[in-house]
């Protein structure tokens, strides 16, 4: 375990969420041993830390892919066909909703309005926006990410 991530915070309850966010950023999920260590370090019941970790959508108990793909399903994107883009993504990646590809690269989420309605339908890969998405563009986009990951 990389305890540095945790020890840089004072041992106070109010840092629970910040620590969880840092762990999520580092590992793309909250490994159980970290959850348990945080509780010990902050002298909080494990049930409280677990409650917070399961409340926020930004935190996850299962490993997320290196690239998290968020499909916007806000009203504008929904009307412009976000559903078919999501289906195509799951098909191309051979994924069930909420799961991560075996190589640990991709996971797909549906979110409600990311505030980029003018670009509808839009998807977000980590921090990058892809507006005006079509079913046809999905495959190439995924392949370009795969290539980057393989060459990295």
């Amino acid at each position, binding site marked *: 375990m990389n305890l540095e991530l945790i020890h840089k915070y004072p041992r106070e309850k109010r840092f629970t969420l910040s620590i969880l966010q840092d762990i999520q950023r580092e590992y793309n999920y909250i490994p*159980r041993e970290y*959850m348990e260590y945080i509780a010990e370090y902050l002298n909080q*019941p*494990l*049930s*409280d*830390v*677990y*409650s917070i970790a*399961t*409340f926020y959508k930004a935190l996850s108990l299962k490993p997320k892919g290196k690239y998290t793909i968020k499909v916007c399903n806000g009203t504008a994107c929904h009307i412009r066909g976000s559903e078919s883009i999501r289906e195509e993504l799951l098909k191309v990646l051979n994924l069930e909703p909420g799961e991560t590809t075996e190589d640990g690269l991709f996971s797909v989420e549906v979110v409600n309005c990311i505030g980029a309605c003018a670009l509808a339908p839009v998807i977000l890969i980590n921090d990058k926006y892809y507006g005006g998405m079509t079913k046809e563009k999905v495959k190439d986009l995924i392949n370009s990410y795969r290539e980057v990951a393989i060459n990295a």
Partner: protein
Amino acid sequence: MLIKIDGKTYKGHPGETLMEVARRNGINIPSLCYKKGFEGLGRCRLCLVEVSEGKRSKIVSACVYPIKEGIEVTTITDEIIKMRKDIILLLLLRAPDNEYIQQLVKEYEVKAPERYIQNDNDDCILCGLCVKACEKLGTKAISLVNRGITKKVSTPYDDPSKDCIGCGACAETCPTNAIKLEESNGIRTIWNRDFDLVKCSICGKYYTTLDALKFIEDKLASNEEHICDTCKKKSTASKFKESFQHIY
């Protein structure tokens, strides 16, 4: 501090909630998530009452409403009944087979429209009283987890919890009897974990778990006699009797 409830005047202390004043004076305000000695949680919203201050009036939850000098409270109006019916309808849709919810349904003559009826069935109404009880009397082994439609009460990871002492405070406070607690052959099973039970040294009945006893002893830093509540009360009463015998 003086307040009026249904036309009569009652005394209250600053910081008290409406529910506390009402309960002390035997006034019935329906509730599921209120428990004497715990602060109000405001989750079930059955305890709605109307509060008037001068010309203004509003509907509030009695269990979380701190009293103010001079307020006038009405515990039942047509509007309150209507709102309560809606709340009971929602509870009914969540816990259709629960006998406590059924009692309310009968009392308020609530009927769920066919098109709302779903098949998922849960006794828990997510009031959080058990979590509070565990925090106050136990070890905070359980909490409310997840959110939205997957919200529930559980131990971390749904695993047997290391923190749990099997005291059963959660099961005891639950207003809908939603928490499974089973006992057989000197073993209590709760939250997926087995606990050894301890017998009362007087009546010989199982009355608590070994872990709960240890927890209390550590807290009080003393060795407790292994006596159940019923026998404790009896022995205090007889000690009382004895000492009074010598006076009269």
